[in-house]
């Protein structure tokens, strides 16, 4: 009888498929994973502590730099927390604009997630490039609105920084008309592709009870068949006014996580279309004192970011700075499932599973 010995391979912190500076210490038996230890913290910048010395407005650009693929969502969750703490009412038009940009951001972020996942499966950048093309259009729209393409700093306490320029709505209209066609193209390229199916179906199955126990959220949770979307479960802003469905997977495998993201893009287009149609006129920013001093108290506000439940916990103490600033980062919590998902699968699957969880290291480490 031949005796085999396990081999330990270190993936990362520099590796093309770890989506940032993330490290996995994986023990293999041949190509089969017997143990996996995720190691993170390489991108820790101490943002939570840093923000305790900034004023409430100054923190907004820092939230851009948490989940840099979904800065708008981060802005959104943070300003919601502050508004809840200070008791500020937001004008209707600002609410609608926030929803429009947040849903566009969800599409942009899912495009990267799906494109990156396909790259992890070994596609030679083609799906990735196609998806980048559509993301580019969204970035064009964001640039039009707020002047930046990645770190938007668009939302303000009490509204948004600027009203949309006149050319925005026609461009947005064109985008939402085009987008479903592009999603069909992705389906044509990927959804029936036998290799994609073979690589992702049944791989890295996350059972619903484990997902709930691990506090997973977002497409990772919904891929396992749990119909939990904060836009519905705990409606914030004006999400109770829109019609949309929550796509859920059946198996909880990597394919379902991919599929849920594709379907969510379709739903986001639907929401943007409704918000565009109902967009009221009026102010985009409530009157807020220049130096905001929220009262004493603590508050937790959460939104459904593209990666899951993104929450900001703030403690106010009558001063211009928050006493405590804490981020509930969905990437980090979803990432803790990695070991359970990977054990027993092969080397190539570990990469695919990591890609299907869709992490952003800047958010994991903060």
């Amino acid at each position, binding site marked *: 009888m031949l005796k085999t010995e396990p081999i330990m391979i270190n993936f990362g912190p520099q590796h*093309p498929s770890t989506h940032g500076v993330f490290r996995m210490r994986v023990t293999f038996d041949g*190509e089969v994973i017997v143990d996996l230890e995720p190691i993170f913290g390489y991108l820790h910048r101490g943002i939570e502590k840093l923000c305790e010395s900034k004023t409430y407005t100054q923190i907004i650009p820092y939230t851009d730099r948490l989940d840099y693929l979904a800065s708008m969502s981060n802005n959104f969750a943070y300003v919601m927390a502050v508004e809840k703490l200070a008791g500020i009412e937001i004008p209707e038009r600002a609410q609608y604009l926030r929803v429009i940009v947040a849903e566009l951001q969800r599409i942009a972020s899912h495009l990267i997630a799906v494109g990156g996942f*396909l790259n992890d499966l070994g596609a030679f950048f083609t799906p990735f490039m196609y998806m980048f093309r559509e993301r580019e*259009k969204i970035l064009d729209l964001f*640039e039009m609105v707020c002047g930046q393409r990645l770190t938007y700093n668009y939302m303000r306490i009490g509204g948004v920084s600027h009203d949309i320029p006149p050319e925005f709505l026609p461009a947005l209209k064109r985008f939402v008309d085009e987008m479903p066609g592009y999603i069909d193209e992705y389906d044509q390229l990927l959804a029936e592709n036998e*290799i994609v199916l073979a690589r992702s*179906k049944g791989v890295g199955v996350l059972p619903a009870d484990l997902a709930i126990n691990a506090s997973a959220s977002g497409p990772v949770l919904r891929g396992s068949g749990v119909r939990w979307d904060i836009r519905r479960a705990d409606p914030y802003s004006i999400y109770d006014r829109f019609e949309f469905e929550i796509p859920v997977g059946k198996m909880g495998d990597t*394919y379902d996580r991919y599929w849920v993201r594709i379907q969510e893009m379709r739903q986001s287009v639907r929401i943007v279309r409704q918000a565009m149609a109902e967009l009221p006129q009026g102010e985009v920013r409530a009157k807020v004192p220049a130096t905001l001093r929220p009262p004493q108290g603590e508050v937790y506000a959460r939104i459904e970011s593209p990666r899951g439940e993104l929450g900001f916990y703030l403690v106010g103490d009558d001063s211009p700075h928050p006493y405590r600033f804490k981020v509930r980062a969905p990437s980090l919590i979803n990432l803790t499932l990695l070991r359970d998902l990977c054990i027993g699968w092969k*080397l*190539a699957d570990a990469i695919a599973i990591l890609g299907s969880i869709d992490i952003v290291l800047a958010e994991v480490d903060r």
Partner: protein
Amino acid sequence: MGVLEQFQHWLLGYWPSWAAYLVPAIVAFLVLSSFILLVVMAFIYIERRGVGRFQVRLGPNRAGPLGILQPVADAIKVLVKEDIIPSRGDRRIHWLAPIIAFMPALAIFAVIPFGPRAIFTDINIGILYIIAISSLGVIGVFMAGWASGNKYSLVSALRTVAQLISYEIPLMLSIAGVLIISGSLSMVSIVEAQSIPFILLQPLGFLIFFVAATAELNRTPFDLLEAESEIVAGYHTEYSGMKFSLFYLAEYTHAFAISAIVATLFLSGWKGPFLPPALWLMIKVFLVFIVLFWARSTLPRLRVDQLMGFAWKGLFPLALLNLFITAAEAIIWPGFPWQLLILNLLIAALLIVLWSGLFRVAGERVSFHRYGRGIAKGMALTFRHLFRRPITVQYPEQRLTPAPRFRGNLLVWDEERCNGCRACARACPVSIIDIETKKGDKGLIVETLEIDFGRCLFCGLCVEACPVAALFMSRDYEQASYFRESLVVKKEQFIAAEKRPSAYAYPDLEAEMPPQTLLAPPKEKG
């Protein structure tokens, strides 16, 4: 008789026999290798441009007209790089591996007929020679993986061997069908036997050979040993400089060789009307190569166990069946009339349907309406993208206009309006604005103004905070410096700078600004 033998015979009349054998061999090697180098360059160029177009990019177009010198530029870049040998690697094997990987690919060309008489040596076991030689390259790859002393490379080396064993058998069996029809192992006789291209008489054999050959070439979807996203280039992770370029060359030479073999065995080789035979062969070679990189730019990669399962459970039995059917046909219709073509196409389709029905993709039985169709659909989609306008631009010459509100890299400061209130400095989240003022006749005069753009977030909060409209974001988007200190911009520089204020926080300015360049909707060309 091949060209080489004729040359040797001629020389034997004048020179001693050792020289008469050695000199033609050296001449042949030089001629062949320079020709191959030329074709490989064309391959690299076509692939890089072609993949670019599949991905709606422009592709490399800088070096020379239409980027035609890109392979030369690539080669020079690789050659001048430092040659690194890992300290824990095996020096000698590390050095030897690229040579062993390259030589077999080159040696295949000895028996490829470029025309009825244009063949170096028409040995009567040509195809057997190819099979024997072409799998030798794998030893070089295995050695490289072992000698690198890198775990990724080791995994890659093990995968190579597993892949070779799985694919070599269906590859050989699929050739056997061709051999039965042509009745010869010699490459020239095989071409001459093709009154109808064998792709029509042996459709199933062709498919199996093509798939198995893709696997032997380590091309997507079977590029397990390079697997950029998993094992980071695998066996050549630790190679650089000349040795890396030899691996690169070996890969493309092998691709050329395999394309030539496919063209010879199944696409009737040099045969074709009007054009000279060698040109016909090259046209067919390039067509085969285009299909190879078309697949590469469409498909993801299979997993190790799936690949071996596919080879052993899919290709191997099909290749065996194909062999039996061809043998039976050889007994029933010994002349292989053209009517057989219809029968064989039907048999091939039927067998693929039946066989794929037995397969399970991820636990689900695949039926024909899905098997192969998904891949075909994807290939069709990437093909359509070939005719779309590329979305990338030629950057320094072709510039995009940023949005009127663009938050660019330098601030525009208006000295006249600034009253030195320091609101911007207070608003800045990273405290990079440094203003010192002194009392003047009408109010405060700014004495020093320093902003460290090396740390700027471009958040725009300073501009929003300014009560007197003296600070603007700029619409420039290029910033580069070798020194960190030069990113600290001082008052004098602000005054001297060319002012291109952005409309950020000043919507009134927007009206006269040029419109933002938006990504145009993709038009089908023409």
